[in-house]
């Protein structure tokens, strides 16, 4: 069953879902590389948690107007609005003399708390078939529609195109904002575009990975990739590759084991890739470095012994 899913033999819908998850992982890994470079991991996490009240309110709104309440595009629109609000709140709070991590913590927990309250209210109201909304927390590809998978794949592709077009200026501004301005670029504008792309990944990942863990899919593959290269474009691509693999394999795995939420599986796979990189990457890996040190020590002991023998 798992092998079938992995090789896209488990039916058209399942194949679409795991391909969509793969593309989402690729976009997350690539965008995440730049999120890492700008050190925006925590802000992205706050943004992800801030989507929840938007999801709930959008559901209520759609249900109130007699809709199904579960239309993915509608839910994502709500999520986008409240995530943008959360981002604005972080920026406002940092402008008062609050440290950024405090502002992030406050916004993250407040929005998430509000979201949980709204979800609970929805469940008690028993309107608009709310089953599956909790899938937004940890991700669930079960019952995902073909349209949802296409939306995710399409959104991922658009985000990747935008990133490809802006990768060089983004890297320039992340490395040296002053020089970027000398080159006629606006680091502030580029920062905003990066946050927009991060928001896109967060939204596309809501259904598959869930809002609690999506930040891990952004950060972990890109962090693993950093062990393999000293060049920003390669780090982004390798991060994309790791993300794609985690997404695709994770979705297939969770499809073959009923009731297994998708997000944790995908994130654990990404973490495995990180662990492998941290241990075994050439030059930077812990084990590689330990081996290098040992052979260095041997060599110096060897020359020392040679020298003392020469003296005797």
């Amino acid at each position, binding site marked *: 069953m798992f092998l079938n899913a992995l090789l896209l033999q488990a039916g058209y819908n399942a194949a679409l879902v795991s391909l969509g998850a793969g593309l989402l992982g690729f976009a997350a890994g690539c965008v995440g590389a730049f999120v890492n*470079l700008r050190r925006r991991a925590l802000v992205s996490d706050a943004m992800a948690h801030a989507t929840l009240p938007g999801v709930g309110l959008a559901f209520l709104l759609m249900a109130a107007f007699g809709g199904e309440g579960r239309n993915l595009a509608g839910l994502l629109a709500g999520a986008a609005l409240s995530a943008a609000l959360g981002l604005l709140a972080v920026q406002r709070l940092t402008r008062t003399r609050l440290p950024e991590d405090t502002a992030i913590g406050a916004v993250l927990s407040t929005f998430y708390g509000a979201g949980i309250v709204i979800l609970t209210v929805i469940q008690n109201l028993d309107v608009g078939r709310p089953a599956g909304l909790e899938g937004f927390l940890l991700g669930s590809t079960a019952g995902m529609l073909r349209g949802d998978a296409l939306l995710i794949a399409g959104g991922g592709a658009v985000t990747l195109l935008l990133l490809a*077009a*802006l*990768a*060089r*200026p983004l*890297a*320039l501004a*992340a*490395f*040296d*904002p*002053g*020089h970027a*301005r*000398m*080159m*006629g*670029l606006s680091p502030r504008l580029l920062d905003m575009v990066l946050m927009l792309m991060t928001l896109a990944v967060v939204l596309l990942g809501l259904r598959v990975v869930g809002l609690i863990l999506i930040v891990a899919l952004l950060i972990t593959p890109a962090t693993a990739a*950093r062990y393999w*290269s*000293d*060049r*920003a474009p*390669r*780090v982004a691509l390798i991060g994309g590759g790791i993300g794609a693999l985690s997404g695709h394999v994770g979705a297939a795995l969770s499809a073959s084991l009923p009731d297994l939420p998708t997000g944790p599986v995908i994130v654990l796979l990404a973490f495995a890739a990180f662990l492998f990189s941290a241990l075994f990457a050439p030059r930077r890996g812990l084990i590689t470095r330990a081996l290098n040190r040992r052979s260095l020590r041997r060599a110096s002991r060897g020359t020392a012994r040679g020298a003392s023998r020469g003296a005797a």
Partner: protein
Amino acid sequence: MTDVTPLARSTTPAEFAAPEAVLTLTGMTVAYAAAPAIEDVTARFAKGAMTAIIGPNGAGKSTLLKATLGLLPTVSGKVEAFGLPLARALPRIAYVPQRASVDWDFPARVLDVVLMGLYRQTGALGRIGKAETARATECLSRVGMEAFADRQIGALSGGQQQRVFLARALAQGADLYLLDEPFAGVDAATESAIITVLKSLRDEGRSIIAVHHDLATVPAYFDRVLLLNRRLVAEGTVATTFRQALVAQTYGAALPGTIPA
């Protein structure tokens, strides 16, 4: 005006009474807090010359350069370069800060950093091919850093990092170079290599403005000096302006050494 002869011109190009200006600052005031760091500075920098900006720590030299480039907000003041407003002149200006405020863990090799100087040519999508790489490598070799091209940028000594940023500025092919203490932390051999590079740029008609602390080397390295201590003290050729009285006035103390009276 007596020395404006073809002969004088060929030996010391910056020796005119009123040289053509490459950069003009008018009434520039910059303040970080309440007290201004530089106040009402009006200055003209000569075209095709090497000008040293001299003044004690905290005189506002770095502030002057940053404000000139629009990297700091000014309280008042106007900047013109090449007879154009700053925004239009910026593509022809290169700048090396005193301390690069960059992310040293960044995944970029030395060569990649120098290639960033070519952004105006390559743009966001232009291919970085053999020609660009060759140009960047050439700039690295002019500062004696070609052997380090593949190193990660953080894995260098302070002086080596400074040289890489100079190479990035060279790659820009600018007509005006603003250098904030280009020789700080640089070894003697590299210093003389860099001064050779700067003089060859000057001889091509480009202009160099450098903050400089080593008063002993001013006459050997520079054509003109600008003395600054929050306010402009004086500006002129080394022969007329780099004088004991003026320098002492700038530093607020008489300085030991061999500055001509």
